[in-house]
């Protein structure tokens, strides 16, 4: 816990590598930046005292210092990187065919590798606890490492004095000595200013600096990342995030899931448009594709708001909010909700028209009747006086152990049992027959009449995602701050030039965090006509 008093009189905190004020290397601390036996100084964090390097007493300190290490941070990144890569080798659970069971799907499709993949949880990697934990640890590492570096670096750069220690100057990568008595320091100063350097003076020493703010870039972008991560965390707060799905049939008005009964949607029309196969431009590509290429998925919808008190199940009173179209890339927005065109089903049956005719004569007719598949009537009386009673209705018909059943309530494969009563015989035994798509079975084998399908009407079903997301502004803010930070740090360079009168001339040294070529060019320009010789790049000399 010893503070270090430099020979220049400045008191530095423990762990300082280069004196905050004059830059003199602190003898005992050179190992911290790996400066031992090196001709050039490692200038990272400007030799400031990173606390993690020094305080290591309590358990908390140890944890803190662990996360403060860039090495640990890089390892976390690398582990996350490798895990992510493995996570893409086989499809994630959300992308396997709907309805398949993950526990068997991976083994069946990919054999032993698939089994191992599944067992290790890679099939759901990105929502697994340990992947989330990895991201969270990266977050912690970002916060702690930034705090530990930003504060001392900020202090050091604020404290730095124009006059630097000889050792500091000599060990800079750009360094030169000029011995001459005709050196124009004033011109040098003017030249530096012309190159947009901020120049300060102390005891005849010049210190020129530009773009110090670029040093804060990394810390700004880390703040952005933290805001982003916190934004994603907000999703777990139910009030801020709604993610639901709703199927709406053409002509149907339905409550929008996730709006707590407040909003309804009517599907006026669902449109699926394909590219014209004869379009000269795309002909070849469509041919290669082998099937039509879709051009538009669109739902024409009306959004309603419920005006009466919300009682679930009770028929609502509705007020139109807006008429709108949902297309891919063009969602419907109302209030704080967004509706995305996400899916569709085509050709669900809507209405079916049947004709009663003689068993052996298709052209005869005792009348037609149309069944509204949403609300079939129990019996249909025909013009001829025949009565057709709907014995059973199977919206999505399947045969289960020889018995007809329906597997859903949606009329995707409708089938009926018809009981036909001839005129005036409604008390007698009816003729029973079964009719469905591509099936027409005579119940007794000696029926006189047949109920035949003559026409049908289909409709489409649109699938819309319902979203309400108050976390987006946070996430966007995080992204924006991150971009500002990286640009600030990457597209500007912190450059410093020191000129110090020494013996019969001057010493000059320069430092930048990147783009040395430009720094050298600027030094060359600034020294022109001043009598100061162009310094050399000491690192280049090595080779």
């Amino acid at each position, binding site marked *: 816990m010893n503070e270090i008093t430099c020979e220049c009189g400045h008191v530095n905190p423990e762990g300082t590598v280069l004196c905050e004020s004059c830059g003199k290397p602190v003898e005992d601390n050179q190992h911290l930046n790996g400066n031992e036996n090196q001709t050039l100084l490692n200038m990272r964090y400007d030799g400031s005292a990173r606390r993690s390097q020094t305080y290591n007493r309590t358990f908390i300190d140890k944890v803190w210092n662990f996360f403060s290490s860039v090495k640990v941070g*890089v390892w976390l990144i690398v582990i996350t990187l490798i895990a992510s890569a493995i996570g893409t080798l086989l499809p994630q659970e959300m992308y396997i065919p709907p309805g398949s069971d993950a526990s068997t799907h991976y083994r069946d499709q990919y054999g032993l590798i698939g089994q191992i993949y599944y067992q290790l949880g890679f099939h759901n990697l990105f929502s697994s606890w340990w992947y989330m934990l990895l991201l969270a640890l990266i977050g912690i590492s970002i916060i702690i490492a930034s705090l530990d570096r930003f504060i001392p670096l900020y202090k050091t750069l604020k404290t730095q004095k124009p006059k630097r220690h000889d050792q500091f100057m000599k060990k800079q990568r750009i360094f030169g000595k000029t011995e001459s008595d005709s050196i124009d320091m004033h011109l040098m100063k003017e030249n530096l200013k012309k190159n947009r350097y901020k120049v300060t003076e102390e005891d005849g020493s010049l210190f020129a600096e530009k773009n110090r703010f670029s040093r804060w870039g990394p810390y700004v972008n880390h703040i952005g990342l933290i805001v982003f991560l916190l934004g994603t965390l907000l999703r777990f707060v139910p009030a801020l995030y709604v993610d639901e799905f709703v199927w709406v049939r053409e002509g149907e008005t339905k409550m929008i899931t996730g709006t707590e009964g407040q909003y309804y949607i009517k599907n006026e029309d669902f449109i699926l448009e394909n590219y014209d196969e004869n379009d000269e431009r795309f002909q070849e*590509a*469509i041919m290669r594709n082998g099937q039509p*290429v879709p051009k538009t998925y669109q739902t024409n919808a009306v959004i309603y708001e419920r005006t009466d008190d919300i009682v679930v199940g009770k028929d609502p009173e509705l007020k139109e909010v807006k008429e709108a179209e949902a297309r*891919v890339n063009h969602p419907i927005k109302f209030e704080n909700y967004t509706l995305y065109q996400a899916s569709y089903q085509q050709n669900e049956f809507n209405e079916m028209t049947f004709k009663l005719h003689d068993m052996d004569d298709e052209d005869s007719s005792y009348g037609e009747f149309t069944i509204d598949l949403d609300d079939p009537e129990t019996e249909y009386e025909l013009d001829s006086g025949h009565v057709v009673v709907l014995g059973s209705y199977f919206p999505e018909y399947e045969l289960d152990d020889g018995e007809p059943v329906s597997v859903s309530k949606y009329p995707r494969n409708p089938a009926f049992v018809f009981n036909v009563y001839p005129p005036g015989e409604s008390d007698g035994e009816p003729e029973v027959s079964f009719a469905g798509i591509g099936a027409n079975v005579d119940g007794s084998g000696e029926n006189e009449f047949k109920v035949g399908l003559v026409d049908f009407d289909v409709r489409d079903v649109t699938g819309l995602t319902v979203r309400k997301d108050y976390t*987006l502004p946070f996430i966007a803010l995080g992204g924006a701050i991150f971009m500002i930070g*990286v640009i600030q740090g990457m597209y500007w360079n912190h450059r410093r030039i020191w000129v110090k009168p020494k013996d019969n001339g001057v010493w000059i040294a320069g430092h930048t965090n990147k*783009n040395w070529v430009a720094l050298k060019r600027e030094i060359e320009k600034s020294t022109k006509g001043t009598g100061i010789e162009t310094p050399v790049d000491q690192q280049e000399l090595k080779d």
Partner: protein
Amino acid sequence: MGDLSAISSNLLYAAFVIYLVATFFFAGAIRDKKTTSPDRVGKIGIILSIVGFLTQLGYFFTRWGAAGHAPVSNLFEFITFFGMMLVFAFIIMYFIYRINVLGVIALPVALLIIAFASMFPTEISPLVPSLQSHWLYIHVTTAALGQAILSISFVAGLIFLIRQVDQNKKTKQTFWLEFVIYMVATTLAFIIISSVFSAFNYEASFEAPVEGQPVEITYEMPAIAGPFEGELISDGAMSPLFQAPEWMRGVDAAIKFNTMIWSILGGLVLYWLVRLVLRKRIGSALQPLLRKANPEIVDEVGYRAVAIGFPIFTLGALIFAMIWAQQAWDRFWGWDPKEVWALITFFFYAAYLHLRLSRGWQGTKSAWLAVGGFAIIMFNLLAVNLIISGLHSYA
């Protein structure tokens, strides 16, 4: 309409030739001979590069006109565009650092990439609904530019390694350097083999079961590996030496596998042919040619490329991608393989920067990282589309 697309293909062809010529000028500029001024030769090289770039820009916009949408919507278009951005990134870096040696590697890489792109179907394809957005242009172009600039760091890294790796003895480094060169040979082999067989209109059809249904599978190269349980039905075609393993399902899987075998073998042949002629490691033969390159500057070019490319890549491949995904698919992030690999690229270069800035990984280490980064970019560009595939399978 047809004219415009014909003009477009001719412009691309012209650009290709111009880049090729420019490469020779750059190669001339780095030779040690004192007879001609290297600066002048280099200047011609960069002027040609710019002309080539403008020509390719001409291709881009004429094709845009012909298609009605920016040509970045399928593999051919995207990879070509990536090649163009690579040249653009090279031109930028050239003007910052003015080193000719960059052109000697950057332009051939771009040439390979463009040639590689034309091995994919080149016809203009219509845009499916999810792609019909301005974000297609914004996201894809920025992402490609970012990747291209990052690739310049690979170019610089490669120059650095060829120049610096000690070729006096066999080491891990010489091995991996040869491996990188071998990968280049493989790409070249793929281009040559595909072009030759397609020039001869080679076709071999098989009937093989795909998900229980017999399907006709047509190879455009002689089948070394035939489809699993496939039966050759074309006359006069070579019968396969063996079958693709059973787990390679799908119509294209076996074809891709076969193409891969051809490329790997072709690459081996090419590589060893050159090596036998040279009688030493190819890296070792190239080393003296790059003696004039200043490793300090090359190292900085590599770092600078990452510094410039990383923000652009993040903006294009992550942020713009998220904005678009939020609009098109109702979520800004869906862990789709392409997205994950963009994130992996981001992580990788983030690690590069941290290692370089605070752990002092410069020079050789940094150069190897740049090679690794390029491998990830290529993996995302090709493997994810051709093998893993997901929402981005169109491009």
